[in-house]
């Protein structure tokens, strides 16, 4: 078990002025035994960051330490980590047992001990009956478990997961997600998990790092990231459908969006050009005559337990999430919204940062 600390970590490809910088100084302290998810859109540098922790990518600047030891110049095998790859990267010509035992064999662990450790991992992952099979004879989910087993038998101080669930179908993904959580609860090993799927991130993470374009936008518990997104990017990225973002001009308790003036339930944090965010479920749709925000309804989507009401406020698109059992408004109607003061998120237009 070990803490991981990233200090001003930078990744550049190429040299000199033509170098292409893809990670711009990431700082994060991951405590011992924590499960941290790195989430972001494709190309944001999340995998690169993980691979730098693993030692598969060189660190161009800054420092990464695992368990208090700076690992910048240490080979992956010496870092006391185990990695689960997106395509599992099982050795196709080796049986499940050999796949799991390979790292231990290289480390010259005695044969009885290898057998004991593989058997133990196989038991945890219910792979006992598959040990003699080759990877090609396994289903996707089984391969995924073997890949995890290979990580477990090494008894590392850190687990690194590089989008390990993205090749599974939706049902299996949900089940495996739970398994990974159970596993973490059982083994308590510090884990770094990369994904582009925000549901995975929200459900697995004790804390999550949201990345965008090589920068860390926010590092916090899922509840906190959801309730208090630090930037416009996080507000738009976490949550489905994403937070409604209205660009307008604030003046006291008025907010002007594309010609429509909205009454705010509380005063804006400051006057001027701001962005106002409201989560779809916090629209505050009420059947009262109280004056509120007028939304033009355009389309309704039925999702089962809930409905999505798409429409516009002023000229900005706005989506509401309402209980599926309620009678929905009809397309073409106007509805009135009364969002609560606590559910308004303010962002600076220039810096994109949250304003408290």
């Amino acid at each position, binding site marked *: 078990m070990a803490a991981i600390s990233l200090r001003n970590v930078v990744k550049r490809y190429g040299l000199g002025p033509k170098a292409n910088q893809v990670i711009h100084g990431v700082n994060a302290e991951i405590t011992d035994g924590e499960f941290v998810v790195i989430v972001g859109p494709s190309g944001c540098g999340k995998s690169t960051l993980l691979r730098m922790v*693993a*030692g*598969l990518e060189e660190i161009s600047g800054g420092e990464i330490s695992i368990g208090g030891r700076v690992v910048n110049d240490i*080979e*992956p*095998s*010496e870092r006391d*980590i*185990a*990695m689960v*790859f*997106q*395509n599992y*990267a*099982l*050795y*196709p*010509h080796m049986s499940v047992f050999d796949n799991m035992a*390979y*790292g231990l064999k*290289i*480390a010259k662990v005695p044969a009885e001990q290898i057998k004991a450790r593989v058997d133990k991992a196989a038991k945890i992952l219910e792979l006992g009956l598959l040990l003699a099979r080759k990877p*090609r004879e396994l289903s996707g989910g089984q391969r995924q478990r073997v890949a995890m087993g*290979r990580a477990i038998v*090494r008894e590392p101080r850190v687990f690194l997961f590089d989008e390990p669930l993205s090749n599974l179908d939706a049902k299996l993904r949900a089940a495996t997600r739970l398994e990974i959580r159970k596993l973490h609860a059982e083994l308590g090993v510090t884990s770094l998990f990369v994904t582009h799927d925000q549901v995975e991130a929200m459900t697995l993470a004790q804390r999550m790092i949201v990345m965008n374009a090589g920068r860390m936008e926010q590092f916090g518990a899922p509840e906190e990231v959801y309730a208090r997104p630090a930037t416009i990017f996080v507000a738009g990225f976490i949550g489905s459908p994403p937070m409604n973002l209205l660009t307008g001009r604030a003046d006291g308790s008025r907010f002007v969006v594309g010609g429509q003036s909205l009454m705010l339930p509380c005063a804006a944090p400051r006057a001027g050009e701001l962005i106002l965010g409201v989560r779809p479920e916090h629209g505050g749709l009420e059947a009262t005559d109280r004056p509120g925000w007028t939304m033009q309804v355009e389309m309704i989507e039925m999702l089962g337990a809930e409905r999505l009401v798409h429409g516009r406020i002023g000229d900005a698109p706005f989506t509401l999430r309402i209980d599926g059992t309620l009678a929905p408004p009809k397309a073409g109607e106007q509805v009135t919204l009364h969002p609560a003061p606590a559910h308004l998120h303010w962002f600076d237009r220039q810096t994109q940062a949250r304003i408290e």
Partner: protein
Amino acid sequence: MVERHPWLTFLTHAVLLLGVAIVAFPVYVTFVASTHTAEEIVQTPMPLLPGNQFWHNYAAALTGSEHGPGSSAPVGRMMWVSLVSALVISLGKIAISLLSAFAIVYFRFPFRRFFFWAIFVTLMLPVEVRIFPTYKVVSDLHMLNTYAGLTIPLIASATATFLFRQFFMTVPDELVEAARVDGAGPMRFFKDILVPLSATSIAALFVIQFIYGWNQYLWPLLATTDENMYPVVIGIKRMISGGDAAQQWNLVMATAMLAMIPPALVVMLMQKWFVKGLVDTEK
């Protein structure tokens, strides 16, 4: 396109039988000729049914006990020389190509591209083009009439290097990384993962190169002058003397039959692997 029509069935069979006849008839004639006495063969018409000299002819050819106008070196010895050279050439080619492809694909070193192209360009140069300089080198090194002289100049292989390079490039990077995380160094990765994955390609290449090595003619013709170091292909040639003397065609044909057996065996025994190696894309 599958068509079922009695006429077409007849036609396809006729074409196939014709093909078999064209390919197999000369082999049959060779076999028949190897079972008669030398006098019987030269009569017209030549007999088309096997004779009764099978054991005598083959024993004579293998041991070189019967003396005719041409060389009568024992074919047994020649087969041995051929076998050793073909094996050394094919295994050597595989070993060298695997290693050089490994270096080119997995290591970053200065002039990597230059080395790749240097190897690739030699693809276009057949042995014959560089045969005199090669002869000079081998002779200066006193390797004429040795196994080393017979095999080493033929071992370097651009084709095989290229083939393995292409195969290695299809091996997913994640596999390399998984091995690195598992603590396997480069040679360990090569031995434990790359070579087993290349097994089918190696088998296919072995078949091709074994036949290539076995059938070498021009180079052994130059590099060997000692009867003891003749490969069987040269041996056949030396058994036929020029001029009007009565040739021992029965023994020549028996030798030809014997020379055909090992490559045929290699192809038959390794057929499954051979085909798999050429068509397999499973990783």
